[in-house]
């Protein structure tokens, strides 16, 4: 399933190495736009949270944590809401564009976690966390990556659903009801954000561990000498 494999020849040494076009433009564009809007949503979300940093009653108010102002966007509650209610449209539009592209181009096969990937998950976990042997990978994404990337898309959908229930608990009363009402929807919205941040932490660690060639592929689409190519 490597659509575009080419061989690059060095004019001096005549050495040849393969390169694969891994990430189509739509995927790269969505990835980076989403990276920006996700950060804005999280930082402005914390600004909004600072106005009532609790999930209990207002009287008496027991604060859950004091989020530092330096890591909050917008300056005050009204500013935080402006950023949040502006970038949510970009966040949603990017998600729809990405999902639409993946489905219609059939590129989702590269990344969507399916039942046949299940048995490959444990060997990857064993390798990453318990120093097990390195499993043979024949695809752009290994089963654990597919699981992570598929789950985080699910979390993205949940972040929008819980957010809608917090923003419009009356118009979307069925959504709020599914989450246990407005009060619980706010708790779920917060929990989903931490789940996404947890993914992001793992994602960034893996990016650092895999180095420049891998990182550059999300900018140019091309990856030189991917390990999954049979040589």
């Amino acid at each position, binding site marked *: 399933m490597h659509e575009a494999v080419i061989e690059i020849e060095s004019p001096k040494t005549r050495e040849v190495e393969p390169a694969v076009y891994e990430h189509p433009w739509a995927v790269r564009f969505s990835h980076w736009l989403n990276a920006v809007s996700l950060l804005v949503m999280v930082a402005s979300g914390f600004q909004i949270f600072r106005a*009532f940093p*609790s999930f209990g009653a*207002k009287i008496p108010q027991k604060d859950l944590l004091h989020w530092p102002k330096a890591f909050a966007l917008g300056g005050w509650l009204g500013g935080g809401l402006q950023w949040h209610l502006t970038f949510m449209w970009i966040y949603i539009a990017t998600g729809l564009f990405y999902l639409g592209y993946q489905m219609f181009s059939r590129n989702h096969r590269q990344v969507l976690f399916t039942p046949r990937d299940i048995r490959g998950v444990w060997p990857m976990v064993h390798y990453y966390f318990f120093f097990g042997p390195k499993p043979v990978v024949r695809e752009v994404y290994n089963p654990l990556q597919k699981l992570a990337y598929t789950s985080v898309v699910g979390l993205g959908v949940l972040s929008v659903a819980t957010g809608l229930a917090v923003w*419009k608990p009356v118009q979307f009363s069925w959504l709020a009801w599914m989450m246990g009402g407005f009060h619980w929807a706010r708790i779920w919205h917060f929990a989903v954000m931490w789940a996404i941040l947890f993914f992001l932490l793992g994602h960034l660690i893996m990016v650092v561990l895999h180095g420049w060639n891998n990182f550059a592929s999300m900018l140019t689409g091309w990856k030189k000498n991917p390990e999954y190519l049979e040589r």
Partner: protein
Amino acid sequence: MEARIDSRKFKKVTRRELLKLAPLLAVGAFGIPKLQEPLLKAGLGFSDWASARGFRSGHLATTFADSELAPFEKFPINGYDVADPGVDLEKWTLTVAGAVQKPGDYTLAQIQALPRKRQNTRHVCVEGWDVIGRFGGTRLSDFLKLIGADTTARFITVECADDYYESLDMATALHPQTLLCYEMYDQALTREHGAPVRLNIPTKVGYKQAKYLTNLSVTNVLDRVGYWEDQGYSRFYGL
């Protein structure tokens, strides 16, 4: 399908792919101080427009059983400056003006002569807290009928004894759960909660539900939207 290309040509290919991401730089406009404010204003405006479009006038906010009510003492009091602006409850009237057939001063007795509605609904504050309370009063729509309001007008505006002011879209004003509220927990409204009359709107966030009403007007044009809206909060903020 394997092609072989020169490494210099490959560099050109990857550079071109990188340049194709240039449209992303447009997001940088949000980082330019001069553009930031109008862009965020447009974003908030779009959210308000979508909210007004999505508002369903027949859709009711969830109501709750008496057992789910927060105790009255635990119902928060959020005044914007004073807890008691010193309204003379004996002489109080609601002054009505604008696109109405019968402008003038209306007494509490006149308002209370209209059918009374009581409802246990959730009060949601823009800050994020919420509380389920019991409210009683007359439907704003009934009062608008009494004063002969032109309900094709776009807005209701209110002014308050503490200089707070608010405005309401007509669809929300006519919603069956929107009350001219003079009771909480079956008792006359206390001063801290906005005596003698406040707005209770289960389909709106808390700051739209003004207290200590003194003036009400029906209009098509807003000179100002509301105390918080004019500082940058959402002007519609329907729940």
